[in-house]
């Protein structure tokens, strides 16, 4: 899942750094992720993983790193079951 997240980051988040250089727990906001970048990232993730972020999960913390995004998506998928 992490590599798919990284692919989406590369194409949608418009980070000024190479996503490959970022660790799974690296802070994406420190790496240049903007508010609108987060919105575009969320929409791309929703499409790719066929999930919908509920209101309570739409916050910076859930998009702060590759690991945080993975946790968020897994949490949404597990609640669906």
């Amino acid at each position, binding site marked *: 899942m992490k590599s798919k997240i990284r692919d989406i980051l590369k194409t949608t988040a418009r980070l000024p750094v190479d996503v490959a250089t970022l660790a799974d727990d690296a802070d994406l906001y420190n790496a240049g992720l903007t508010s609108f970048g987060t919105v575009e990232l969320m929409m791309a993730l929703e499409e790719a993983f066929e999930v919908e972020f509920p209101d309570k999960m*739409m916050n910076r913390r859930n998009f702060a790193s590759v690991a945080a995004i993975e946790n968020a998506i897994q949490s949404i998928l597990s609640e669906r079951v």
Partner: protein
Amino acid sequence: MCQNCQQQQGFLAELIDSGLLIDTGVDGLYGRSGLFEEVVARFDDLITRYGGQDGAEVARFPPAMNRQHFERSGYLKSFPQLAGTVHAFDGDERAHAQLLHDVADGVDWTAGQKSTDIVLTPAACYVLYPVVAKRGPVGKGGALFDLQSYCFRHEPSKDPARMQLFRMREYVRFGTPDQVTEFRAIWLERGQTMMASLGMPLEVDVANDPFFGRAGRMLANNQRDQRLKFELLIPIESVEKPTACLSFNYHQDHFGTTWGIKTEDGETAHTACVGFGMERVALALFKHHGFDVQKWPAAVRDVLWP
């Protein structure tokens, strides 16, 4: 004092019946009486008495801005539903004839309208950022501006406190994060003192802007989590949902980055603003003290008419 608080739909009708507001047939678009304007002017003066000693540069713009600046500002990302753009006829004689036929037939006549270079100002400070950016880095002490403009937001409503064209006074601060957050903290205090002196029941709360769409929920949540926006709320149309009459906003480096505004040492400038809803404050005064200003509490009159 506040005899009409239970009436949800009545206040607008009372304002129009009393002549304070003048109906135009469009929700949210009203004329103002001389008395209404007098109250707005007295409140405008009160703001200056609180903020005038800070040495702000005064600038007044017409209620419209450069379309290219508007496009670059990012407003369309956040609030496409609220924007008002100015279009004009740009056709030949044949198109003119068609236009007149369409108007006469009562069908849509706007298909041939072309966008102009002008967009209605959505918030008083939007015109300012490109102006400041063009001047180059702000000095060591940062920069401070005093603005007032009619602003447009496309949100027709029966709530008189939600007008489509209304005036916003603003102080806008540019500088380091410390400089602009200190400015906002000062105005959070000043704003409460000022409005309390007008006998207003008020509360201050964390708030968010009405960002568009579901994705906008995330922007709103982030804005609240980071406590970037506070509003001073006064009940006008509803006690349960009081109206934001002043707002205190920390934009972080959003406008500094968008416009390339730098501080003297080359860092991206941060910005903050305090906004005063002129009509909303006037409406709050009429709501809580009545339509006859001669009968307003003496203490309130002394503040507004010193």
